[in-house]
Structures are given as C-alpha cells and as structure tokens.
C-alpha cells in the first residue's frame, strides 16, 4: 500500500509516533544522567555552604566536605515566609530542625532549577558562633541561589557563595567567579548592602558587574530582602542557646 503522506490521519499519527520515539531516549538519558548531576549539585552545596561560613572546603575532597557538612546543625522554615512580618517581629518565623535526608531530597528536586527551600545552618568556628542559610530569588534568566554566612551577632557577612545561577554567559554569569563572591566577606549588615559609588569602597558596599545590572541587583536584593532579614530572625531565636 502506498502511504498518502498528505492525509491528516497519517500526519497526526506520524507526529505522535515521532514524538514518542524521541521522548523515550530523552527520558532514558535524563534518568541515567540525573544521579550524576545530583551528585555534583550536592557536593557544590556542601562546599559552598561551608565556605560561606568561613570553613575551608574543596570539591576535590568530597568526603571531608561531607563530614564537615554533616557536623553542622541544620534548620528549615515551616510554611511560607512573610518577610514584612518577620522584619517587624523576628520571633514570628517558625524554625524547626531538619535532618540530612530532608535536605538531600530537596537537593534532588532542585538540581535543574536551583529553586532551593530555605535552610539554616549553625556551627562554631574558632570558639565563635557562625550562622548561614540558603536563599533563592529571581535573577534575569532564572533562580539565583546564594549561601550566605554571618558572624556570631550577625553584624558582619562571613561569606557569600553562589549555589545556582543561569545568568547570561560572560555578563551576569560571572557572579560565580571568586573576585565577585570574595568581596562580600567582612561587609557590615546593619544598613543592608549597597552598591559602591565609583572609585569608593563603603563598609557595606559591593561592586556591581559591569553590563549586568539586573543580575547584580538581584544579588543585592536577595541579600537585603531575604538573607539578612531571615538570618537576623534565626539568630534572635537560636542565638541564646549554646
């Protein structure tokens, strides 16, 4: 029988067949590559969370990073966060302990989107309390997820690391580079983070990336409108405990 390739029935059938044939190998590829992508994302998460608290960690030594990460105390937030309410009353934030399994599950769900839930960490470095958290906000192309650490009383940033971003290559995508993330160490938090005026370095000032205004602003806003507010509430609630 000759196929009438102009008939609607054939076209629709053939389209479905081709779609199915193509989706199958893609699903296979997805299922086989996902564990590899997940491992990378988890390791990045360990290393960068530790670094944001001023603890040295290296992706080349995954076991060390894992042990150090497991030693942290971990918390999460119950329900959705009302930032204005938390700003007015730090104790209105509902914080609970979580175990590593919950975090691992969350990491598995977010390895392609970076849409991490909020997690808090606390530990002691050189006899001093350190606090950190994972905070996600919108960038230009997708989520920007940051690990932000502060010192015992929350007055200074101990480090900022970019956990996830899909910003424009060569422009906003440079937020992951050490020269950018390194500048946050030691910044004062009481007034919030601002952009440095050109040629000056303020005690709470960061340099924006030239040509990537939106991404730079996204980082500043995640710090001011999410990270610093929630970390303050976290310290207010857990800071009294030893």
């Amino acid at each position, binding site marked *: 029988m000759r196929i009438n390739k102009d008939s609607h029935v054939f076209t629709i059938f053939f389209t479905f067949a081709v779609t199915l044939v193509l989706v199958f190998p*893609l699903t296979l590829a997805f299922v086989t590559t996902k564990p590899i992508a997940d491992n990378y994302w988890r390791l990045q998460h360990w290393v960068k969370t530790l670094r944001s608290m001023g603890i040295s960690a290296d992706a080349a030594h995954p076991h060390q990073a894992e042990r150090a990460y497991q030693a942290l105390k971990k918390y999460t937030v119950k329900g959705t966060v009302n930032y204005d309410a938390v700003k007015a009353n730090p104790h209105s934030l509902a914080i609970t302990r979580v175990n590593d399994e919950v975090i691992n599950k969350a990491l598995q769900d977010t390895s392609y989107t970076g849409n991490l839930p909020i997690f808090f960490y606390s530990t002691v470095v050189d006899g001093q309390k350190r606090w950190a958290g994972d905070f996600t906000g*919108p960038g230009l192309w997708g989520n920007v997820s940051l690990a932000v650490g502060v010192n015992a009383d929350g007055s200074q940033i101990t480090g900022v690391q970019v956990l996830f971003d899909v910003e424009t290559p060569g422009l906003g995508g440079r937020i992951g580079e050490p020269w950018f993330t390194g500048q946050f160490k030691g910044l004062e938090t009481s007034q919030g983070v601002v952009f440095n005026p050109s040629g000056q370095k303020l005690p709470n000032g960061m340099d924006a990336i030239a040509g990537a205004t939106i991404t730079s602003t996204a980082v500043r806003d995640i710090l001011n409108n999410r990270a610093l507010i929630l970390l303050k509430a976290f310290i207010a609630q857990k800071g009294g405990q030893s």
Partner: protein
Amino acid sequence: MSYVDPITLLFASIFTSNIILANFLGTCSFIAISKDLGSSNGLGIAVIVVLVLSSAISWPILHYILIPWNMIYLDLFAYIIVVAAVVQALEMIIERVSPALYMSLGIYLPLIVANCAILGVVLFMEIRNYDYVQALIFGFGSGIGWWLAIILAAAMRKKIDKSNVPAGLKGPGITLITMGLMAMAFVGFSGILRVQ
C-alpha cells in the same frame, strides 16, 4: 516573589525589557525582514498573535502536566511543539478563511518558529513564575515591543537606503550597526523599571 501588577508588566515588556533590544532575542528575522516596512508590519503582527497564543497554551501545559508529572526536563520539547503547532494551525486557518491575509502574512509564519523571541518569552514565563494573567500580558507586551522595534528599524532603513553607505557595508552591515546603537539607547531604559 513579589507580584508585578499587570500595567507595570505591560509597560516593562514593551519598553524597558524589550525582548529584542534589551534581551537580544529574535534578531535573525529582524534583520532579514526589516528592509521592508510593509513586511515588517505583517511579521510584527504575526509575532504578537503567536506570542499570545503560545503563552496561553504553554502555561497550562507547564502547570498541569509538566510540573505535576515531574517532567520539567521536557519543557523545551513541549514549548517548541506548542509554538510550531500554533504557527502551523494559524497558517492552515488563515489559508482557508482569508486567502488575501494569507498572501500578505502567510509567508512570514514559518519564520516565526525560528524566532528566538517566542521561545524566549515562553521560557521567561516559566523562569519568572508568572501566573496566567501575567503570562498573557507578558506575551502580548513582548509582541508589541518586538513589533515596535521592527517598525522603527524598518523606518530607519528606508532613510539609510538613500544615504551614501560604503558598498561593503550596505544591507545587513549597516543594519547591525543601527541595531547596536538602538540597543545601547535601550540599555538606558533598563534603569527606569525592572521586571523579573
């Protein structure tokens, strides 16, 4: 995430976050078609229609199929099928309903599938977590923005055609330079209003 109200979103998607001059999506057909004002108008309108329809169809697919069934890795696949199907269906409908419109608009329809602006807008809709109304408005506004940009460029090219341009730079060359200047002007807009 903070809610962007529809009017701001519409304004932003037309001017400050213009899909072509601020995000540089959809430049190929822009350069090819902007040499003629009439065609530019036709393609611009086709882009608006396709953008609104694809946003309208992609949003439910994302929220009722891809996310609940955990198939988000197939998002590009789903979106491009929607875009191609919309264009294909539109082509067939216009051909049957209004042959005159088909003659003037039909030839541009295939060009739209290869227009990064469409896929870009649908991707933005997913990335920025728009609700249904926002997705529709953003699609419509981006379409208007694209139409406006191509009309402006076509008008300018009409003028440039009469000027004395070096032979090697005629056509696409000078258009690229014009677009570069337009884009630099639009960078200034981005300080006024920002949508995410």
